[in-house]
């Protein structure tokens, strides 16, 4: 797989309302403009959640199909970005439940602590890859919160909305996952 460093949400989301309005009016051509706006962030979110390239690709397509089928139910007062991610969340959770052995939100035990020097090298590619693996080892619910907070730049309230969980649960998952990574790395 090709990896590329991408921070936050792609450019072009400012065009969201107009394209979304076109889709709401039944213009299926608007999908050609709309999907690329979310391609990177939605795929990344799904990939981090399910840890599987093929599954992430299928879920990406299913998310857009579900979004296009239900676009009339979308409330324009709400962020399309968050609405889309909540659809993706539901589909991914269904997939993970079917896929069994992975545990969605079980307790996890911190692994062996790495060397102190890891902190200074945090931005080093090797450490970054190690951190990526550590995130991948977390249960899906914790990976999800970390991805939405740090890669999608969502506020806790927005994460609660997307994941349809209480704010306190989001906070607790964020706290525990940070604590886990802190103990594993530093």
């Amino acid at each position, binding site marked *: 797989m090709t990896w590329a460093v991408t921070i936050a949400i792609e450019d072009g989301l400012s065009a969201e309302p107009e394209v979304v309005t076109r889709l709401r009016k039944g213009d299926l051509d608007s999908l050609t403009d709309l999907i690329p706006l979310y*391609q990177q962030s939605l795929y990344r979110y799904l990939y981090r959640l399910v840890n599987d390239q093929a599954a992430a*690709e299928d879920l*990406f397509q299913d998310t857009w199909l579900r979004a296009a089928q239900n676009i009339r139910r979308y409330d324009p007062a709400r962020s399309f970005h968050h609405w889309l991610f909540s659809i993706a969340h539901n589909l991914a959770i269904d997939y993970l439940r079917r896929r069994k052995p992975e545990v969605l939100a079980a307790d996890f035990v911190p692994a062996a602590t790495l060397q102190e020097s890891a902190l200074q090298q*945090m931005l080093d590619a090797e*450490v970054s890859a190690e951190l990526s693996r550590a995130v991948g080892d977390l249960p899906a619910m914790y990976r999800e919160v970390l991805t939405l907070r740090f890669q999608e730049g969502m506020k806790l309230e927005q994460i609660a909305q997307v994941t349809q969980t209480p704010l306190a649960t989001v906070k607790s998952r*964020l*706290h525990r996952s940070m604590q886990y990574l*802190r103990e594993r790395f530093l």
Partner: protein
Amino acid sequence: MKSHNEVRGRLPLAAAGALTRDEQVEVEAHMAQCPECREEFARLEALRMGLANLPSPSPPPFLAQKTAHIVRRRLEAVEERRWRIRTIAFLVAFTWVVTLAAWPVVRWVAGIEILTWLLYSTVWGWLTAGCAALILGLHAKHTREEL
């Protein structure tokens, strides 16, 4: 004033920017006089930066185009199916209206009673509808295979 341990427990959320304003103020006030917590916070900050800069998986080439194409085809197939169902429902209703409206003429010409007329019409109706359903089913199967 929060105790050292209470503040320390909040540091992961402070680094994640997930504390309320009041909590953040308390944490900052404590850190101003606690080098140990300042050091811990700096580590968590580095972790936060590492998380924000994780390598991002690249989507497969043409994923957006492929998705747009698939979604479009599936929605069109659904719309066509709806149209077919509406058409069949209209034709069934139309057939019954014509059958009932034609009965006075049939009785005048052939002297057939209404129950006999309805029996004949129903048998012919089912045969015709069966053929129509078969043709539409084959067409739908062909469309699905194309998708």
